[in-house]
């Protein structure tokens, strides 16, 4: 059985009656019967172990766990009503000074009262004590809900709350039960037997994602690379700079990272980086054990990339004796400009030269433009006007930016 009453929503209408003002005799003192009107919460331990007088000393921890669970729910309720705040006000936790005054016979039933602190102004105490009482009832109803639906109500479903709630009853044996909740209304209590406690534990274990290693993929441009630490910065649009650490044993990946690095902080292909993180909400994002880096492509870029694959499949001698296939450095430089080439959205072609080069050809008006990416880091830019035969050419070191600019503007700068 998981419920002690119906699932009516708890109310805080009895906050006044469930706290002690701290003057005079403490509630329950000198009495041996049921819960008092001024008792803050009902708490009963059931099982053979608790049939004797008082309460086993080693079960007193359960009161502390119950107090902690109520406090965490109260904290969440406070934050829910004060969206502009990231934490509860100073003194909010200390003021929840739940006290045990006596233990009633039968099942161990410690009397729990909540004295009003002297240093808290009345209007604040009214608010806080109301929240504590509401939290007590929300905790009971949420526990009943969790037991039947395997989930906590969203309003209090946080890792802190789940962790605190699953501790309640955690020291008890499988044949022992704790009943907690409203001091006088049985319908506002929850019964945590071993089955319910298992459900609470499982919910928290399933949702405790921050403790798990998560695989995450982020897209951006690599702007900094530290070869010694094997780490790099990935500039992303949504997450800012992500700190990434490479798989320490993957030398090829480290080399590839270097080739897709934006040396000028700008000119490099977008890459998707897959690695592991312990907390996906942390900023800056940190990815460990990065094991995959792929160049990200749009449709136009994919068409160009497919052509690059064909170029890379050529073998020396492909175009006759002594002809050379595109060299590794030529293909690497081509990969670097591929995203920008696609972004031009112009009908350009990638043609292999027989000397290991690749020619980017583009017709602009009457001009045929050739950007020749050559081995050993060289490039030649050629502008050939097919009507006038006016010819311009420049031989330079490979430079991605000036190559793209040449193709974009059609002039050799």
């Amino acid at each position, binding site marked *: 059985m998981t419920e002690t009453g119906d699932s009516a929503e708890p109310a805080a209408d009895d906050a006044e009656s469930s706290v002690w003002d701290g003057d005079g005799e403490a509630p329950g003192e000198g009495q041996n019967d049921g819960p008092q009107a001024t008792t803050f919460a009902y708490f009963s331990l059931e099982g053979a172990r608790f049939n004797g007088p008082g309460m086993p000393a080693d079960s007193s921890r359960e009161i502390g766990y119950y107090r902690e669970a109520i406090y965490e729910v109260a904290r969440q309720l406070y934050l829910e009503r004060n969206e502009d705040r990231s934490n509860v006000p100073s003194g909010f936790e200390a003021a929840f000074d739940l006290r045990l005054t006596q233990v009633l016979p039968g099942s161990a039933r410690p009397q729990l009262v909540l004295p009003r602190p002297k240093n808290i102004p009345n209007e604040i105490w009214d608010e806080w004590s109301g929240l504590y009482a509401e939290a007590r009832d929300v905790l009971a109803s949420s526990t009943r809900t969790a037991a039947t639906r395997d989930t906590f109500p969203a309003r209090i479903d946080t890792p802190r709350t789940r962790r605190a709630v699953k501790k309640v009853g955690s020291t008890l044996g499988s044949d022992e039960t704790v009943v907690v909740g409203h001091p006088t209304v049985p319908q506002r209590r929850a019964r945590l037997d071993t089955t319910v406690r298992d459900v609470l534990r499982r919910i928290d274990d399933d949702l405790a994602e921050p403790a798990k290693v998560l695989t995450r993929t982020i897209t951006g441009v690599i702007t900094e690379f530290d070869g010694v630490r094997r780490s790099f910065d990935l500039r992303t649009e949504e997450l800012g700079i992500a700190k990434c650490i490479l798989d320490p044993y993957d030398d090829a990946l480290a080399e590839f990272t270097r080739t897709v690095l934006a040396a000028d902080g700008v000119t490099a292909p977008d890459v998707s980086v897959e690695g592991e993180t312990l907390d996906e909400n942390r900023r800056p994002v940190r990815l460990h054990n990065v094991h995959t880096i792929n160049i990200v492509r749009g449709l136009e870029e994919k*068409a160009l990339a497919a*052509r690059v694959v*064909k*170029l890379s499949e*050529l073998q020396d001698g*492909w*175009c*006759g004796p*002594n*002809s*050379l296939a595109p060299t590794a450095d030529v293909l690497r430089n081509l990969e670097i400009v591929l995203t920008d080439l696609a972004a031009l959205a112009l*009908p*350009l*072609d990638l*043609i*292999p*030269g*027989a*000397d290991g080069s690749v*020619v980017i*050809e*583009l*017709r602009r008006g009457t001009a*045929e433009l*050739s950007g*020749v990416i050559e081995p050993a880091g060289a490039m*030649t830019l*050629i502008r*050939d006007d*097919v009507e006038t*035969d*006016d*010819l*311009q*050419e420049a*031989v330079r070191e490979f430079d991605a930016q000036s190559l793209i600019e040449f193709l974009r503007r059609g002039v050799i700068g």
Partner: protein
Amino acid sequence: MNNQHGSSSTEPETSAGAVGKPLNADDLVYRQVHPMHTRETAGGLSPEAFTPQRGHSNLLSTLHGRIGADAAFHRWTVEMQHESLGSFGVTAAEVSAVRVDPVQNQQTVDPTLNVYEDGASIGVPDHCSIDFNALTKGQRKQAARKLLDYALDRGGALNTPAEDEQAESA
């Protein structure tokens, strides 16, 4: 061109040092065009098909037209196991007619092309070379574009299509 090997004036030395024999103006030479020289995006062929490589001393390899377009294609694709779209032909006169922009302040020699039959000297029967050595890289590209235009004006691939290609076109 100098003839340091004492050959007759009709067999001048090419810039690569091989002895070459000039062709008659109407003689055709066939160039094999690799499929990778197709412009997949813009359509047509790239002048790279007629651009020589430095590894060949900037000499563009062709075969003499007397063997026929089919034989030239066969030698290249069957005997030498290379890929080709077909035998593209230009005449010696067309080669000689190619003029390129002198590219101001960069040119020290006459930017013209020459074609020689040099098969005997390199051990490849019927081999002819079109000599681009006097040209800059840009000029070679422009000259190649003009040679390609001549070849395309002549109809492109001049060899008989393979049976499967004939079936496709039918």
